[in-house]
């Protein structure tokens, strides 16, 4: 059995033994045949405008995992400074330059979950959302985000 499969099975066991977080609704392979394709559904963090939404993530794992990071993309359209609204691409350092094998798929999903409540407008993939934050228009940002959450991501 390839090392990637072994490790993914271990991670799956760990997730089933102790679920990582209440806001991770589902996390697991999409089908029994291919363990390199996972799917996750995150609940929008409370005290953020994402609250009340459920956000689906597609997780593609290369056969070099965990040496290479997995690729996470939002399937649900998300209005967030570090998420491309059209493609769902996520800009997060641990998914690129700062990846290390110590991260698991569960902890990576939690990092994405935290990114929702902690946006970083200085390196935006969604300039409109980032500009609202950069000029300090929190009210505008919150209402824009909750509009999109209600439009696309209601549970």
């Amino acid at each position, binding site marked *: 059995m390839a*090392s990637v499969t*072994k*490790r993914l099975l*271990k*991670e799956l066991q*760990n997730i089933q033994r*102790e679920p990582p*977080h209440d806001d991770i609704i589902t996390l697991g392979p999409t089908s029994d045949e291919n363990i390199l394709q996972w799917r996750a559904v995150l609940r929008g963090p409370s005290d953020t405008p994402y609250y009340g939404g459920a956000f689906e993530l597609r997780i593609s794992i290369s056969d*070099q995992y*965990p*040496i*290479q990071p997995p690729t996470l993309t939002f399937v649900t359209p998300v209005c967030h400074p*570090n998420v491309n609204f059209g493609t769902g691409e996520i*800009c*997060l*350092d*641990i998914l*690129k*330059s*700062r990846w*290390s*094998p*110590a*991260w*698991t798929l*569960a*902890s990576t999903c*939690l*990092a994405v*979950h*935290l*990114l929702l409540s*902690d946006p*970083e407008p200085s*390196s935006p993939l969604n300039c409109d959302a980032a500009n609202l934050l950069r000029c300090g228009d929190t009210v505008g940002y919150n209402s824009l985000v909750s509009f999109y959450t209600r439009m696309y991501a209601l549970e």
Partner: protein
Amino acid sequence: MSMQPAEPQELAGPSAQPQILQSSSAADKCWICLEELHKNKREWLYPCKCSLICHEECLLHWVTESERHSRSGVVRCPQCNMPYKIVQWRSTTFNMLHTLYYVVDRAMPFFLATIGSMAVVVACTAYGAHAVMTVYGPSEGRRILGGAGKWEQARWAWLPMIPMTLILSRFQAGVAYMPLSTLLMAAPQPLRMEWPASPSLTLTALPTISFVYRYLWDMTLGRLERRWDSALPPEKQGMTIRLFGRRDVDQEDVAADAQNDVGQIDRPAIPQQQQHIHGLPDQPGGRNIDATIVLSGAWLCRTLVESLLLPVISSIFGAMIGRLPFFRRPGLSHFSRAMIGGCIYFVVKDIVRVLYKYLLYRTRSSRYIQGRKRF
């Protein structure tokens, strides 16, 4: 593009710490492949002072991969941030070869750029030589170029300049450099007022001739052309570049100017140069507003091709007028005939264009749509 919002631990908070830290049984698992300690006989390692342990094989794989991405080459423990100490066989030959390959890889783009620019220079030189042969005629051209064996450095300098000068001279700014080409080309011949004019005298006089011609054109046919232009809707909009100055005019004026600009572009009236900068003081009726250029791809292509074909066109026109008795005098060189031919080409071109504009204007103004009139 890579984003660095925070340290992973800091960003993720305690709940999102790497898996190892959450699990109580972390101590006996490889932090890379998550396998338990006693399961197989692979080499175990305590690489740093913290609780992370792993297989040596797994860690070597990770270190090799991270070295490829990190610039410093230092790989650290993701938990305690201690750099891993990597011991390996060291060989001076390997280090030298490694550096060599690195330098060669980095230098390749520069080599490629150098070769590319040399190819351009060679192409320009070939073009320049061809232009000289065309304009001066075979015998004089061969004398100027000399044999292929005894090309001096000066030739390498000025031959590639010919296509550049031809193109540059089509632009307002390029006219200033026209005499420079004369200096480069006709250095051995002193400037003397004589008839038929020597090549250097002709080239020096060209900007003046073109200026006078442009002035006369603006006074006569240019007026008519502008009138027809302003009556016609603009052909197509190109890219508008505002060079300098500010425009304090209302929208109507802007629209009118846009029309004029297009007309301006379609008026490559002047031999050796083209006035496509709008609003110069000598512009009849022109308020001295600013310089706006409308560049369209078609115009650019036309100008480039025309500039580069100019030697051939001039020589063809020169050959044509050479059949007339007046131009068949022995004193008139192939070069002079080509120059006169070039001037005639520009005049003919301008007249044909004005004719086209006039016919277009007549066609458009005679237009109506067939149908029953209500009253």
